[in-house]
């Protein structure tokens, strides 16, 4: 019996902390990667990044609706996954259009990073307007297909435990897709010629130019990679939860927090930062009362909720971590400036 208590406690924790944090962390890591790549190569903090995420997700939703209306679905998988490549193309094209018409002017002028940052605030306004104009400011769920891989009730009955474990298919898809995206990105950056020249450009612009790297090509590739990552992150987040422009805009700060906590400009740091932020948000606001009830003998059971911070502050945790990191170790976990 004692043994069961322990397993119950572990399952409880896995269900409410581990699985959600893992999928949210993967989504955040992908989004932070795109932020960090833009920062590393183009050298400015892009405030519009979260709105690129809503733009890409919006494109995916529209394509998914189109496919559904002509009767194409992905079977047990969500249709949005089929729409993802098309959404990425649209997002990347629009990204390049904005770069040509807005950012390239300041790049040629060699403007300060802070000017580019203010410019990105302008882009942020325009993107928000476009997304809200086309799809509206409301919550949208666009998930279809098979919802659960493991259902809590089945799990309980099968193992004869008190606690159930739910794994939604979106959570598994998120982790797998994120892994594929990360591995291919790191392979691209480390092994291919283009990726190496990107890193060289990020490290030392003048030296890269001297060795014959075409800066315009690097910029284009950067925006394309950024669009791929941010659209994928947005679609995965939207499948897992739901799509709402304001919620997506609010992801901007966790993204920045993750980038800085991990070490801004470093892709590995971005991944670590994403998971650190996601796990802290969830572990710090989870009420551990039930967990300890399973583990402790009866007379030692806790009376309170055993919660470090109230769930009201879930949203603020990433900033609190950000502030602490800025004070204690401003360079972040992985010391990095370059990609």
């Amino acid at each position: 019996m004692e043994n069961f208590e322990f397993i119950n406690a572990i399952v409880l924790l896995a269900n409410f902390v581990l699985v959600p944090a893992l999928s949210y962390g993967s989504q955040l890591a992908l989004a932070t990667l795109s932020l960090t790549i833009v920062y590393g190569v183009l050298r400015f903090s892009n405030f519009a990044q979260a709105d690129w995420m809503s733009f890409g997700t919006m494109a995916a939703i529209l394509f998914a609706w189109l496919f559904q209306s002509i009767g194409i679905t992905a079977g047990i998988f969500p249709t949005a996954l089929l729409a993802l490549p098309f959404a990425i193309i649209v997002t990347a094209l629009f990204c390049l259009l904005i770069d040509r018409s807005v950012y390239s002017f300041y790049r040629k002028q060699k403007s300060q990073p802070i000017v580019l940052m203010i410019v990105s605030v302008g882009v942020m306004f325009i993107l928000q307007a476009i997304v809200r104009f086309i799809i509206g400011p409301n919550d949208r769920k666009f998930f279809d297909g098979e919802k659960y891989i493991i259902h809590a009730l089945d799990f309980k009955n099968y193992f004869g435990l008190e606690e159930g474990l739910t794994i939604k298919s979106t959570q598994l898809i998120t982790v797998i897709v994120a892994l594929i995206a990360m591995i291919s990105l790191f392979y691209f950056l480390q092994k291919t010629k283009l990726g190496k020249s990107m890193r060289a450009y990020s490290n030392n612009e003048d030296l890269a130019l001297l060795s014959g790297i075409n800066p315009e090509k690097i910029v284009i590739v950067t925006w394309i990679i950024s669009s791929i990552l941010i659209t994928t992150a947005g679609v995965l987040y939207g499948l897992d939860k739901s799509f709402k422009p304001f919620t997506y805009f609010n992801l901007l700060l966790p993204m920045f927090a993750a980038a800085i906590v991990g070490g801004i400009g470093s892709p590995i740091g971005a991944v670590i930062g994403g998971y650190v932020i996601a796990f802290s948000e969830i572990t710090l606001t989870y009420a551990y009362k039930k967990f300890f009830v399973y583990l402790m003998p009866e007379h030692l059971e806790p009376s309170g909720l055993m919660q470090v911070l109230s769930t009201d502050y879930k949203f603020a945790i990433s900033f609190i971590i950000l502030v602490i990191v800025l004070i204690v170790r401003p360079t972040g976990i992985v010391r990095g400036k370059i990609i």
Partner: protein
Amino acid sequence: MNDELRAPIAFTVMGILLAIVGFTQSWSVSLSIINLCIISSIMAIGVNLQWGYGGLFNAGVMGFTALGGLTAVLVSHDPIYEAWDKAGVGIIISTIIFILSITALLFVFRNIENKQIRNTLIILIIFFGLIGINNFYGPSINIIESIDPAKTGFLGGLGLPIIFSWLIAAVVAGLVAWVIGKITLRLRSDYLAIATLGISEIVIAVVKHEDWLSRGVKNVSGLDRPVPYEIELQESQWFLNLIESINFSKLEAINSLTSRQDVLNDLVISSSGIFVKLCYAGLFFSVLLLIFYLSQLALNSPWGRMLRAIRDNEEAASAMGKNIFLQHLQIFIIGSAIIGIAGAMLTTLDGQFTPGSYRPLRFTFIIWLMVIIGGSGNNLGSIFGGFFIWFIWIEAEPLSIGFVNMLAGGLEYDNPLRIHLLGSAAHLRLFIMGLLLLLALRFMPKGVIPEKIQKK
């Protein structure tokens, strides 16, 4: 264009725009816009001090505005004696424990060299601090929030006239800015922006969720007013006489006594609203003038010259023996204090404090637009930016709806596309804002009224 002429032309155009609203919509609408324009201008001056004079990108404007609003509540609302009697001690004790733990942490952080001892001590302080605070804090807030939750459920304020809060808001915002500045001002410019943006969100989270302090999302309404109420005006004799004498000729033309009385009554009711708004406008405008005058003085003083020297070349200024961090901290505190004043004024004008309404777009980025489009480094430019951008922000909505109506004119009345377009038209104002910012940055990077470069 001659730079000397830019300011007069800009303000004339602004005046004409406001007059057009006055004639075509109503003077009441025009005055409401003016009141918010003045508050926006004050915020813009605060940001301009930080960005235009000091080169600091403060993206936490929203946080200081909310602090100003909270101060307005805490100064003007009547104290809830019952809450203080039952739980005041608990709150005071937990505040003391909180302050003590922070001081102890700072002390340990600064004075103990050995890393192991330092880290153990930090963990111990946080652990016992949390336990201590939880012991007093949790029960106290439960008591406070259970006292008449529909009406109060918080500690209340000092019960002073709300106008005092404008001054106190400056002090509160300045103190918080001091703490934030200590943490963030050593960072590079874009880190500073991200950090302040994050901290302002923390401030909003606290204001939203600490119900014992601010009632949270339940809002505090019915704050007292520094100006008379419409209903009082309508009942006072001097106001009746005033309206009668202003509209003397109009009333003379009406023959029948009863209909003349009816017209007078209507006039009194509509004028009382305008009179109240005029009172606000007068108050706000005097604050604006005072702040403008003082910041002009500061800009032209040796201190202002030093700040611009630091902004333009930190290393040279540092070599001349100027303490850059200290100067940045000073200007950060002063700018934030001004934003705090504007925040208190805003809550005064609304008569209520609604933490849920603080969003970064409206309270941070729009203010930035005002400063950049108006002309960073020039206070007159910020005032113009405050008026112009707020005017566009308000008027863009009806304009874009009208525009979409025109576009969709050819479609049938119940066409789904037409319905969708009309429903989303209001969001076009974000587009207009973004476009304005991008155009200004591209073609007028110094703003409408640029900074004057003084050469001697």
